[in-house]
């Protein structure tokens, strides 16, 4: 594959990937490829991939459908949950429309209750996720993965073999390695690109259905970025920021913009969409594929876990690798678990690593952009 375009064009192309996939998904559907719509990084993508199904993310990030959602759901609920439900209800999301099965997990309270109503619009399967990453929890999640496999087999009249799962694990691991190589380029100081551009690629990649091809493209982008870096094409030196907390795609990407418009650069995303969903590989040596998947996925450090040691562990590792100058913790409005966790994360960041920390609560609307800009500008002036 030859990549001749300029980097800004490539970033834009990835940013457009979600829209482009609307057409892609239609042609997959016409070819008879089953489509599984998912909401969460705890979802073991390898299982549907093993039967050749396409997996699409249904987490919505726009405030467009929130008024419709609020007719059924309380107002003071997380915007991600309201937006996702709203898109399903109004049939405005083509991914939801084309999904043959929608899968949720019992993560936060808001999401698991929302899935109960989502079942009015679509076939919904909810995987039971344990509250803690204990041995019993892992056994339980392993059984849930097997149960989910059976649901797929019955619904689509197929047999999913362990060899197929093993092959899917390998394929996804290769994609994870490619994405990791990409975001680890941000260890360079000065940074090679804006965090906004990195996030476009990371987010866009989740909407590429051909994972082999996607990995190749990402490697080619990495080569290109490295070559340009050698030639001196990189950002000027800027304060380096780590983002952690709730996802920052779509409407919440205003946080990335507020940081970078005011002179900072987001060098690492610890949250979903960034390292949280990519960093750890599935153990390819484990003869028990279900156990390997359960261990890898359950280990994700989301605040719906109690306690949540994986988040601290990953944050510590990333702080040492990427050497950020400060940490910004994003909380989507009414996301109680991430909100409660801010005090623990603040102590961890300021006491263990002596880095400035800021938490901010926001939603998908544009109403707080002025305040966000002032806060981020003041935070960056402080560094």
């Amino acid at each position, binding site marked *: 594959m030859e990549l001749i375009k300029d980097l800004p064009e490539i970033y834009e192309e990835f940013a457009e990937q979600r829209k482009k996939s609307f057409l892609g998904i239609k042609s997959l559907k016409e070819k008879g490829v089953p489509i599984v719509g998912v909401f969460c990084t705890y979802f073991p993508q390898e299982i549907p991939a093993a039967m050749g199904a396409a997996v699409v993310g249904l987490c919505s990030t726009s405030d467009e459908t929130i008024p419709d959602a609020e007719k059924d759901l309380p107002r003071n609920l997380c915007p991600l949950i309201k937006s996702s439900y709203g898109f399903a209800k109004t049939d405005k999301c083509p991914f939801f429309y084309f999904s043959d099965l929608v899968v949720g997990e019992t993560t936060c309270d808001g999401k698991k209750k929302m899935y109960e109503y989502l079942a009015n619009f679509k076939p919904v399967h909810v995987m039971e996720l344990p509250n803690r990453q204990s041995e019993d929890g892992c056994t339980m999640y392993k059984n849930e993965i097997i149960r989910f496999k059976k649901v797929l087999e019955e619904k689509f009249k197929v047999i999913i073999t362990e060899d197929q799962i093993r092959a899917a694990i390998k394929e996804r691991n290769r994609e994870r390695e490619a994405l990791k190589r990409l975001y680890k380029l941000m260890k360079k100081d000065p940074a090679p690109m804006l965090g906004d551009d990195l996030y476009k690629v990371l987010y866009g990649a989740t909407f590429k259905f051909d994972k082999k091809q996607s990995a190749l493209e990402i490697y080619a982008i990495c080569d290109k970025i490295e070559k340009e870096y050698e030639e001196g094409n990189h950002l000027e030196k800027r304060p380096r920021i780590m983002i952690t907390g709730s996802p920052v795609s779509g409407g919440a990407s205003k946080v990335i913009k507020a940081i970078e418009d005011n002179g900072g650069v987001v060098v690492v995303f610890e949250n979903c969409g960034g390292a949280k969903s990519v960093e750890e590989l599935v153990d390819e040596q484990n003869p028990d594929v279900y156990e390997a998947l359960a261990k890898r996925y359950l280990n994700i450090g989301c605040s719906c876990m109690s306690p949540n040691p994986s988040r601290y562990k990953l944050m510590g590792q990333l702080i040492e690798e990427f050497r950020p100058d400060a940490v910004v913790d994003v909380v989507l409005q009414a996301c109680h678990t991430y909100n409660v966790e801010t005090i623990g994360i603040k102590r961890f960041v300021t006491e263990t690593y002596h880095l*400035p920390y800021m938490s901010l609560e926001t939603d998908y609307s544009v109403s*707080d952009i*002025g*305040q966000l800009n*002032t*806060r981020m*500008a*003041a*935070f960056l*002036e*402080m560094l």
Partner: protein
Amino acid sequence: MLSLGIDSGSTTTKGILFDGTEIVSALLVPTTARPKESLNTVYKALSQNGVDFTISTGYGRGLLEQADKKITEITCHARGAAWLNPSIRVVIDIGGQDCKAILLNEQRQVADFLMNDKCAAGTGRFIEMMMRTLDAPLDSIDTFVQGKKPASISSMCTVFAESEIVSLLAEGEDAGNIALGMIHAICKRTSFFAQKMNLEGKVFFTGGLSKYEIFRKTLEEYLQLEVHTHQMAQYAGAIGAAVIASETL
């Protein structure tokens, strides 16, 4: 060498002309519906004898074309407050539409800050509205509440508080008691908000409300820390901007 700092706040626009050691002149005008005009009025009045560097701050900081630099009100308030009183470690600013608490390190730089910018409760706007409903001039607030007992206030929402004031008046509650009750409610709320950070040392109180002794005294009561202010405290943001501007010269 003269530097100019202009703070475009939601209620008033403040300007400070600084010669590197002393304040040469100060000006405060109300911020109109067109904040750019208020900024230009202050700029014109203070720059007539020439100025070498101008920094704008406050929520309208992006609107002054003549500004050489724009800096947020957090950094400027901290610097201005520390210039007025070098012994302070905390700045609490109650402005027209928001409220902020700033923690300073030993070098008197910003170490941490909090902003309550989501609603007008507990800000200058709230007090303005309250005094209007009580039919008393804002500037008389210190004497208005003298010797009064704070009425118990349940609503802190600017919109709902008005109806609460009306019903308290209808029940025959003394207007001074109501005003004092509201002042206590605001100071209590501001203290809780600021105490999310570990406060220690002297507190400096800035913003439009800092000129009223009752607020300083009540804040002190709730914070359990010494609260200082200064006759120029309302200008802290503009002073900070002017001081920072003079350092770039």
